[in-house]
């Protein structure tokens, strides 16, 4: 038994190219799964840490329309709580908060360090945020007694060059509400895991209101409710195991209070930020699984081939008394060795890959969502155990068919090698059919995950069929070229014969190319849809961000808009929430003659004065269509309005609701932004006029810049997918290289004979290159339609279900040519080394090998 095992394991060494290929396949799969999980978990962790810094142990918050609360509501609500009002039955603490993102620096010219400004009531806040000192401790008391003072987290202080332990106050400058404001730093506090997340500047609530020009307004009121959320435990576990794959698994309840105020679970708020980031992480997680599938396929193919090649040896072993079960176990042991080696290598590779991915994700997330992402991984064993477990389990699973085949070998001393029998081909077809059925069956169900599973099934099925397909193509060519020169016939037949080895690599190439093409088509459709959407919007919009709180537009600005912006559309926007969804509500005012549809890319209905238009993702999430009724929070409660149209929108932010002026809904007071849409040409003039008329602290920006920024963000997002795509391509090319090298070694003896007979040295080299070309071309022929299918599912199913937007098709011919070119290049790149090796080889040496190998 021990010797038997040794014989088997020695085979791994003798066939080391194939073994290496399998190990590499497993390790790349494991590495990508691990890297994606680590990167996703890390960026998610960053968001949660940032959230926890702000929320502390608060479980819920009271929020109001327009994301703010009149400060007079706070004593009233506190009184209700103290008097035992049922709505606050299980509330244990209540603390008002004013917060905004700001920047600080040592002098007014260098206010560049981003910090979250948090205005608190130190007395009410005691115990709410563990890190923040209470009124008794380290400078906490001075916040209340001395206006213009603040506390900063120690890590940020150090980054500014301030010694947190030094005594005495430090003068700092804060950029808030469009102005530079002096502040006195009276102390620091430690955030613990401060390396994660963003800086935190804590001050008294009144000071914060003054700095932010929000006197009289709160951002929200934090609550601690009795029973910490223990439900959703299953959802949280799922998120840990599949970071990025579970979108919005947690939803909190919203309870309405008086005057448009409502209690919201913070889990729900966190879920919103997660949902945004998840749309991006989903891409990564899906690609991680795909890489694993490709890796598994390599294992499956390699072991299958190894068993096939040793059929005769197995038959002899059976004849001399080795049991079928023993052979089966031996093959599984081989798989386990490959699996363990692959997993170990993969974990190392994964850590390394994760840092690269994280840098890219961090950049993207920062751009997309203004989130500060992390530079370090949380020491969490879950992703590592998961990747290792998945890798090992999958390797053994992929080896099952081969081990079963080994056990089926009939004993005999003179067994001849059998080609793939008709029954095994039938089984292959059956398996493929089942995979396809299962995948397509899942397509309509299970949300966007169903779409991804369908893609995976489609890819697997095609991978299984690839060798059959390539054989068919090559046989077809052989038949077509019936009377071709013998050298050509030799090429075709050797290529078919080599498929036992190269078929797996061909399949990997098909999967990689189809994925690349599918993603490429999706990205291109996305890009051109976004471009068209941007074009369709009214040209040259200006973006005016007012500083502070406004109940209506300032009179001068109003006048300037009426004068200079005639023939424009003026949009006044504020943030809000509807049914838990963050939304941006825009009050639309037309001035003079503007297009009836406002240049919106309308998908359904129209833009009309008697109702609302909503963006496509929001419409999908809330199940809205023309004719539906939407409950819109307004200054004095809630109004019911009819939806008249759904328009296209690719912003990654909240859903968009357009409210025509004619509906009579007034602008909700609060933090307002104004956008001016109109014909090109006079933007500069309008901008100059608006700057003159607007109150101090107003920022006027050309929207083009914002749009360029948005486009830049898209490009970066796709850069990450591009990286993973290249990895899949590299695996396939390496697979092809290993297969062609192994074939080259196997054929050395034969080349030796041919060279001796007088075949010149170029022929074997050309045979190698020709074989690689044939493989690549057959693979491309299969990958092109498959890639289109993948793109269809990505566009029509995954994007619609995960992100709520539809895309216009774009099939640029250059993408197909590119796929063809890349396939051929990969094939040639893989063939060059083996071809050169036979070209250089001495015929006498090759002949000697022929004598040995005969």
């Amino acid at each position, binding site marked *: 038994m021990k010797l038997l095992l040794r014989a088997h394991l020695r085979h791994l060494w003798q066939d080391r190219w194939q073994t290496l290929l399998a190990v590499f396949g497993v390790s790349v799969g494991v590495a990508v799964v691990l890297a994606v999980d680590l990167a996703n978990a890390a960026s998610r962790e960053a968001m949660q840490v940032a959230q926890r810094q702000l929320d502390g142990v608060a479980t819920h918050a009271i929020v109001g329309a327009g994301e703010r609360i009149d400060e007079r509501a706070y004593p009233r609500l506190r009184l209700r709580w103290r008097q035992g009002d049922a709505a606050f039955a299980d509330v244990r603490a209540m603390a008002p908060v004013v917060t905004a993102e700001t920047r600080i620096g040592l002098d007014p010219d260098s206010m560049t360090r981003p910090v979250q400004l948090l205005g608190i009531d130190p007395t009410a806040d005691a115990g709410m945020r563990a890190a923040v000192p209470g009124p008794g401790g380290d400078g906490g008391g001075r916040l209340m007694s001395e206006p213009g003072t603040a506390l900063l987290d120690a890590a940020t202080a150090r980054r500014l060059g301030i010694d947190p332990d030094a005594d005495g106050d430090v003068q700092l400058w804060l950029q808030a509400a469009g102005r530079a404001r002096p502040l006195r730093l009276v102390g620091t506090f430690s955030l613990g895991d401060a390396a994660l997340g963003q800086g935190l500047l804590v001050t008294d609530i009144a000071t914060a209101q003054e700095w932010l020009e929000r006197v009289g307004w709160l951002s929200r009121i934090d609550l601690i409710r009795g029973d910490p959320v223990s439900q959703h435990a299953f959802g949280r576990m799922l998120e840990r195991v599949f970071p990025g794959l579970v979108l919005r698994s947690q939803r909190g309840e919203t309870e309405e209070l008086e005057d448009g105020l409502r209690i919201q679970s913070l889990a729900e708020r966190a879920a919103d930020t997660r949902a945004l980031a998840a749309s991006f992480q989903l891409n990564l997680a899906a690609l991680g699984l795909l890489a694993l599938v490709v890796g598994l396929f390599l294992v499956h193919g390699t072991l299958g081939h190894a068993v096939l090649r040793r059929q005769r040896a197995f038959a002899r072993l059976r004849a001399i008394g080795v049991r079928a079960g023993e052979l089966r176990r031996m093959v599984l042991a081989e798989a386990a060795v490959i699996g363990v080696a692959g997993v170990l290598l993969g974990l190392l590779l994964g850590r390394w890959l994760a840092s690269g991915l994280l840098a890219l994700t961090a950049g993207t997330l920062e751009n997309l969502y203004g989130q500060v992402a992390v530079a370090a991984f949380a020491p969490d064993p879950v992703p590592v155990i998961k990747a290792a477990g998945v890798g090992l389990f999958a390797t053994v699973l992929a080896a099952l068919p081969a081990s079963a085949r080994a056990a089926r070998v009939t004993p005999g001393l003179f067994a001849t090698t059998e080609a793939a029998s008709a029954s095994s081909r039938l089984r292959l077809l059956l398996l493929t059919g089942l995979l396809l059925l299962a995948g397509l069956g899942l397509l309509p169900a299970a949300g966007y995950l169903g779409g991804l599973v369908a893609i995976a099934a489609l890819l697997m099925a095609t991978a299984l069929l690839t060798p059959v397909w390539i054989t068919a193509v090559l046989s077809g060519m052989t038949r077509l070229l019936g009377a071709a*020169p*013998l*050298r050509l*016939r*030799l090429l075709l*037949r*050797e290529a*078919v*014969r080599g498929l036992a080895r190269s078929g797996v690599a061909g399949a990997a190439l098909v999967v990689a190319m189809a994925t690349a093409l599918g993603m490429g088509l999706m990205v291109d459709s996305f890009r051109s849809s976004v471009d068209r959407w941007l074009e369709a919007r009214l040209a040259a919009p200006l973006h005016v961000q007012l500083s502070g709180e406004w109940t209506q537009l300032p009179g001068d600005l109003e006048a300037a808009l009426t004068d200079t912006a005639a023939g424009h559309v003026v949009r006044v926007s504020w943030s809000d929430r509807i049914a838990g969804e963050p939304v941006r509500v825009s009050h639309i005012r037309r001035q003079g003659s503007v297009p009836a549809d406002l240049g919106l890319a309308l998908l359904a209905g129209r833009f009309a004065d008697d109702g609302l238009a909503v963006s496509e993702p929001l419409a999908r999430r809330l199940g809205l269509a023309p004719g539906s009724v939407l409950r819109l929070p307004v200054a004095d409660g809630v109004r019911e309005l009819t939806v008249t149209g759904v328009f296209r929108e690719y912003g990654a932010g909240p859903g968009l609701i357009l409210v025509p002026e004619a509906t009579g809904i007034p602008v909700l007071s609060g933090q307002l932004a104004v956008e001016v849409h109109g014909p090109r040409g006079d933007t500069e003039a309008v901008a100059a006029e608006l700057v003159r008329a607007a109150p101090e602290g107003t920022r006027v920006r050309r929207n083009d810049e914002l749009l360029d920024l948005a486009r830049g963000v898209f490009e970066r997002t796709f850069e990450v997918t591009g990286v993973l795509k290249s990895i899949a391509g590299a695996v396939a090319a390496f697979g092809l290289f290993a297969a062609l090298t192994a074939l080259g070694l196997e054929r050395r*003896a*034969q080349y030796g*004979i*041919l*060279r*001796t*007979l*007088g*075949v*010149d*040295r170029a022929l074997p080299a050309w045979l190698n290159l020709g074989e690689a070309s044939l493989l690549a071309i057959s693979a491309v022929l299969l990958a092109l339609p498959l890639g289109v299918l993948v793109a269809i599912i990505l566009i029509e199913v995954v994007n619609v279900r995960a992100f709520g937007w539809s895309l216009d098709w774009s099939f640029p011919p250059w993408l197909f040519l590119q796929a063809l070119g890349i396939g051929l290049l990969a094939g040639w790149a893989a063939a060059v080394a083996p071809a050169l090796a036979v070209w250089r080889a001495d*015929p*006498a040496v090759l*002949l000697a090998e*022929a*004598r040995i190998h*005969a």
Partner: protein
Amino acid sequence: MPAPLLEVTGVARAFLQGERRIRVLEDISCSLAAGQRLTITGRSGSGKSTLLNLLAGLDRPDAGHIRWHIDDRDWDPATLDEAARTGFRRRHLGFVFQFFNLVPTLTALENVALMAELNGFDDAMERARSRLNRLGLADRMDAFPGTLSGGEQQRVAIARALVHEPAVVLADEPTGNLDRESGDAVFAELLAVLAAERRALVLVTHDPELAAGGDHHLALGTAR
């Protein structure tokens, strides 16, 4: 005495095996005329295959000369470049190996036709067919080597060695892998064709009976 087809004078060849230098061939001389047969015998490891490699231009001697005289031209493989040596083998030599060594993905007919095609004969298929016919393989022409018996494969190999009408056939233990009876039959057929077409044969063999019938005989010792 016919004009010499092959003249070997004072050929020596040694190999480095690790630190040791093994002198396999030392001061070998012999000659052969057109249509004649040279048999080479010797113990395993005595350098028989090494000598064949030298004759075929697959290897160069350390000392001495090998001169072929074919088609009124002198050929010294050691002085030719790689392409010319390949061309020489292709045009003027035929090979029969111990393990037949047919191309597994070409049919019997195609294996034979390959040599004719390499030599640029337009009627490659025709020539191959008639060769195989003469060797009694008319009904096995479209079979792949894997389905032929050892004797059949060796007859295909003989057809391959002759189809381009070389001046000489080099055979390295052509019957070594066949049973006595088929070995004798195949060898007899080879001799018959060679005699009819006046082609020379250089034969390496362990079989004393086959070795006995040659015009020249070279017994290699184990020089060290």
